[in-house]
């Protein structure tokens, strides 16, 4: 679809350059790239993500000039950036909130790709590269969160490295290499810092491949119908999409600025303002919000299956939730790209999206706490009976239980505790987690066979004309 280059070098210098390093031609072709004219605002998140990556790299480089990767000094060095470095507070708030903004944008970008079937033939490689970027983003964000060396940094990294240790055979050695020793400490912090600096450049490299792969088949579009006629169906990327993406980026920056200037700590956790203390574990350890759905899937698995223990199974499910994205192009068997024309798939996708967000809520909450209570709390008398069997008597009436308790001999070790019943977050995460996998592994493969798609427009130009109700296509402006 990119077609032959339309660039004509005009001046002596550009002609000279074009014969040696045709980089001007490269840029001109990139800007002139034919892009479907019916892209909606969901397509602007590619540009937004490029802006996010640039912002993270620039602010990160400045932060690295002041940060000290040492367990004794890291926490204070971050605070020093916030207090004593000129505009350090600004740069650090942008970087810390930028991670959240980056993930917000990437999730919308991914849901858009899933809804409009942007992963399908011939765009499988674009999608896979995207999933690689997403995976690297998660690794980078996780390591970045460890650097301020707060309580959540330390204990969060302990949870994640322990997970890797649960993998049979290779888990323990990988865990040791990751931590740089038998426990989390200075070697861990130093290698996390090193990798946290390295990975964004790896991401940038894969972004280049992602865009390169995009420029072979060209953009998908909301109808999913391929470009038939470049003249009628497309407009040049510049100025049409530079200005549209530019507008979306500015709107996104307003949301970004709102967090940076007015709610800089809203997406963080108060525990991370307490310096890391290996001897004191926070009451509940939670990752950053963007990793919560996977954390919920990890904790949803509380049962062994055959010889596989629950812990390993949870790790498998968590990584499986990401791995399944890599094979999504082949799991979805439908020939129709856009879910606009797939009524059943569209409903199931909406449920999938809600389930994914719901899993995030599950991840934020204690799995043993209740989403809602079944009724008012009761009290239970627990004691050991004369046959040395544990007993539990539940009642609403505390005074009655109290009387029972005093009637029991001291050897019974009777105690009264609260008994509450409700719908556990654990159960919700199991239901939603099951749906997550059902959607990919059962619904999408089956729907391609059984679903009857709605009629699709003959071309992009046709779909646009229908929308506006005009009989003849208006001429493109160029």
């Amino acid at each position: 679809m990119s077609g032959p280059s339309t660039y004509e070098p005009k001046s002596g210098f550009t002609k000279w350059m074009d014969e040696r390093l045709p980089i001007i031609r490269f840029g001109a072709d990139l800007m002139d790239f034919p892009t479907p004219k019916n892209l909606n605002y969901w397509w602007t998140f590619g540009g937004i993500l490029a802006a996010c990556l640039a912002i993270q790299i620039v602010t990160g480089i400045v932060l690295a000039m002041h940060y000290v990767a040492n367990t004794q000094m890291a926490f204070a060095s971050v605070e020093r950036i916030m207090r004593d470095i000129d505009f350090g507070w600004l740069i650090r708030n942008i970087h810390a909130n930028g991670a959240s903004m980056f993930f917000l944008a990437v999730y919308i970008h991914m849901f858009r790709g899933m809804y409009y079937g942007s992963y399908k033939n011939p765009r499988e490689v674009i999608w896979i590269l995207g999933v690689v970027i997403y995976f690297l983003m998660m690794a980078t964000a996780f390591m970045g969160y460890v650097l301020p060396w707060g309580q959540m940094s330390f204990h969060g990294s302990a949870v994640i490295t322990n997970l890797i240790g649960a993998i049979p055979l290779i888990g323990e050695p990988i865990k040791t290499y990751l931590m740089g020793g038998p426990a989390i400490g200075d070697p861990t912090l130093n290698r996390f810092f090193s990798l946290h600096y390295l990975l964004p450049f790896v991401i940038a490299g894969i972004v280049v491949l992602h865009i390169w792969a995009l420029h072979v088949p060209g953009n998908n579009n909301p109808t999913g119908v391929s470009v038939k006629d470049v003249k009628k169906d497309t407009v040049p990327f510049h100025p049409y999409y530079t200005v549209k993406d530019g507008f979306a980026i500015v709107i996104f920056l307003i949301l970004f600025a709102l967090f940076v200037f007015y709610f800089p700590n809203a997406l963080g956790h108060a525990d991370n303002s307490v310096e890391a203390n290996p001897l004191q574990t926070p009451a509940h350890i939670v990752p950053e919000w963007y990793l919560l759905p996977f954390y919920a899937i990890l904790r949803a698995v509380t049962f062994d299956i055959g010889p596989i223990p629950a812990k390993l199974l949870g790790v498998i499910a968590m990584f499986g939730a990401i791995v399944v994205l890599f094979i999504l192009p082949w799991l979805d068997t439908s020939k129709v790209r856009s879910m606009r024309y797939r009524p059943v798939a569209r409903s199931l996708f909406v449920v999938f999206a809600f389930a994914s967000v719901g899993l995030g809520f599950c991840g934020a909450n204690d799995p043993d706490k209740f989403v809602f209570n079944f009724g008012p709390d009761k009290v239970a008398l627990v004691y050991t009976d004369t046959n040395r069997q544990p007993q539990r008597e539940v009642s609403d009436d505390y005074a009655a239980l109290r009387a029972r308790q005093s009637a029991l001999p001291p050897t019974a070790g009777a105690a009264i505790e609260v008994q509450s019943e409700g719908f556990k977050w654990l159960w919700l995460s199991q239901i939603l987690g099951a749906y997550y996998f059902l959607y990919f592994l059962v619904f999408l493969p089956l729907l391609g066979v059984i679903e009857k798609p709605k009629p699709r427009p003959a071309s992009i130009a046709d779909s646009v004309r229908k929308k506006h109700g005009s009989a003849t296509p208006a001429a493109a402006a160029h």
Partner: protein
Amino acid sequence: MRFAKLALAGLAALAVSAVAVPVLAQEHGAPAGETGHAAGAGGHELMAPAHGWHHEEFFGTFDQNQLQRGFKVFTEVCSSCHGMKLLSFRNLGEQGGPFYEARYPNPNDNPAVKEIAAKYVNQIPSIDPDSGDPVKMPAKTSDRILGPYASDIAARVVNGGALPPDLSVIAKARHGGAAYVYSLLNGYHTPPAGLTVAAGQHYNAYFGGDTAASWSGDPRHKPPGGFLAMASPLATANVTFDDGTPTNLPQMAEDVATFLAWASDPKAVARKQMGAAVIPFLILLSILVFLSYKAIWRNVEH
């Protein structure tokens, strides 16, 4: 197609709420604990002064007199156990700080700051250049506001095993911020009948923890809060405020909570002020870019 748009818009809204709601859940439903983590209010609504917290408002600022009063409470009461090692004395005289004066752009020249540093009770450990012996030197404006103990171990020995936390970022490190500090200082209620308080411990209705093990009544009605080693620091304190503000416990608690909120994030006011310029600029820019977009696309059906 309309449905798809609605669904996707709903999805975006959900994505945004996915950010917001866990945050709110973490802010309010905070679990309890010891000093090692951000203790919550023990499932208890936090207290606030009748006029609220001005500095937490969208364009809220700090009252310099209040910051000075809060600092006085800190020096006369808190600093006998707690330090603020992330702050230097000079920070007190920086823009937005309690002792800032426009005619001293360099806070190290500020006589008020110099005076505070010079007479600070917790002197700075140093080495005597003549004898090589460890000595304590009077603080300079560039020195950190250290606590009185030479080490954490020394602090624990004196405080019945408990470690008085450094207060530099305490408002940021506790759910509720200034409101938590204020509630804690006001929350030394008489323990309800049926609650056993161990020797060396003090009941506080707002301290993170669990009273279940010390409660002999209906476990569904256990008192909120927990126990801590610090006795009510302001109960016997009598800080005379230089600006004539009457001294009482709620006033001292409010002032010191506000000072600690400032100390946790001394650039908060500068941050909000810059936001008030950046966001309108971005809104204006978005209008201009939107008009360009409309102009460029005017002849394209899309």
